[in-house]
């Protein structure tokens, strides 16, 4: 009895190691020529398998977010907003479906002969109760899903209302100014405000913050940069008043189109973003971002001096 049991125990531990469905057949050649193993019905059958799905297009996961005015979130091609995350997976805008990772064994048709990357079940169900499901191989380094934090940040910037500079000068147009006279340049203090916007895609929220850093003035002959709004000129100021943002013309504008120098002002914001929730990156610095351009024009005259002896 003891011997029989020992023999049985030895036999028990000498059974072959179990292998995954796909490789077992793919490598073993259990299927007739021209067919491949397909996991089905709780087992493995042999059938003719066409390409299960097109490879993914790199760089198209989630909402595009690259345009400054693209709204946050996930959208169908017809513009219908859809949840970025459902029980079917993450929205994959490039394939217009919800993607969930499949652990199909390597060597099975789903891998399309690849040995790296990943395989995804790409599901789109209609109201009729039928679903379209593509099994898609995705190259290494690419992954379907909701927009990345950087894409969300780009989207959020598009949603920020960066201030279009309201140009003020002294002398103020349409009154002319003169060569050799310092012109004061400023924008309203109310435009010097830090802006913030958050966008959420699934469990991830990205907040961008835009802080005004400088104003770039193009006064015609040259450009100058002011590190603030500039000092507003008000009636009654004495000659002793000064500004840190001004420009003195050395030539008149008579030869310019319309006889004026065009003036533009752009508030430059320092933009940074932070990510909360599941984030591949905690945050980032997007540097200086230009707000819309504010415009004006100045007529510059040459004042003639007569010396009387």
């Amino acid at each position, binding site marked *: 009895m003891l011997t029989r049991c020992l023999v049985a125990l030895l036999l028990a531990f000498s059974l072959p190691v179990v292998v*995954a469905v796909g490789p077992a*057949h793919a490598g073993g050649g259990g299927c007739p020529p021209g067919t491949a193993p397909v*996991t089905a019905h709780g087992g493995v059958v042999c059938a003719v398998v066409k390409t299960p799905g097109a490879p993914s297009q790199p760089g198209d996961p989630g909402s595009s977010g690259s345009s400054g005015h693209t709204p946050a979130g996930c959208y169908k091609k017809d513009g219908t907003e859809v949840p970025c995350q459902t029980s079917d997976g993450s929205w994959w805008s490039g394939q217009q479906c919800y993607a969930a990772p499949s*652990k199909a064994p390597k060597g099975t048709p789903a891998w399309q002969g690849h040995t790296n990357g990943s395989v995804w079940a790409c599901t789109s169900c209609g109201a009729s109760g039928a679903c379209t499901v593509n099994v898609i191989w995705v190259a290494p380094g690419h992954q379907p899903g909701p927009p990345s934090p950087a894409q969300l940040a780009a989207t959020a910037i598009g949603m920020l209302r960066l201030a279009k500079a309201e140009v003020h000068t002294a002398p103020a147009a349409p009154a002319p100014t003169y060569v050799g006279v310092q012109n004061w340049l400023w924008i309203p203090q109310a435009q010097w405000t830090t802006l913030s916007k958050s966008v959420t895609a699934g469990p991830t929220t990205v907040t961008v913050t835009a802080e005004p850093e400088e104003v770039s003035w193009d006064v015609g002959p040259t450009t100058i940069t002011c590190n603030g709004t500039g000092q507003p000129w008000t009636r009654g100021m004495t000659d002793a008043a000064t500004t840190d943002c001004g420009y003195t013309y050395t030539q008149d504008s008579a030869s310019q189109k319309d006889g004026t120098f065009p003036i533009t002002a752009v508030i430059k914001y320092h933009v940074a973003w932070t990510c909360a929730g599941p984030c591949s990156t905690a945050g980032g610095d997007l540097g200086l971002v230009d707000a819309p351009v504010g415009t004006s024009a100045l007529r510059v005259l040459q004042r003639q001096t007569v010396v009387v002896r």
Partner: protein
Amino acid sequence: MLRTFVVLATFLVATCAACGQNGADPGPRGSPSTSTSVATSAPAELAGYTAKERQAYEGAVSAYEAFVKRSNHFYAVGETSVAAKDFYQRYSIDWATAWANLAQAANNHIKVSGPTTVVWTKPVTISVRSTAGDAITIKRCLDESKWTVEQNGKKLAQPQLKSPHVYTVQLEKRPRETWWRSGEPKLGATC
């Protein structure tokens, strides 16, 4: 000395009793609990497990049979329906893989039907954990020779199904879930 022999013999008898029909052990088995509540009336393949473990095993196998029956229906129809998706999301350990498998069959117009004969079912490991959930691995010898596989309406020969094969299946009952989830069967050798 005699006492030592009795203990060893008892262990071997209990272990050997789990070897199953025809002496074909399905493979390595988990360590049965050392609890003293081993019942003498347990089926051979469950000898050495506690009553709680046996109960979990029987529940899991029963749930798996129901899972297979329902899943097979989807393969017989050959369609990826919302009902099938919902079913796999609720009852599969890895729903996306189960769903992709069905999609693979449906997209290639494959329909599979016919009875599966379970030659034997045995536990490999039984882990009953009150807080972490329950996990059971089973091996089954399945006779699939009566399956009918059609592709685009044409019957396909399935020579690999002539002999019964051993499949290993993971089953788990997750914390805060009252039902069993089934894993994808892994194909082994012929039984």
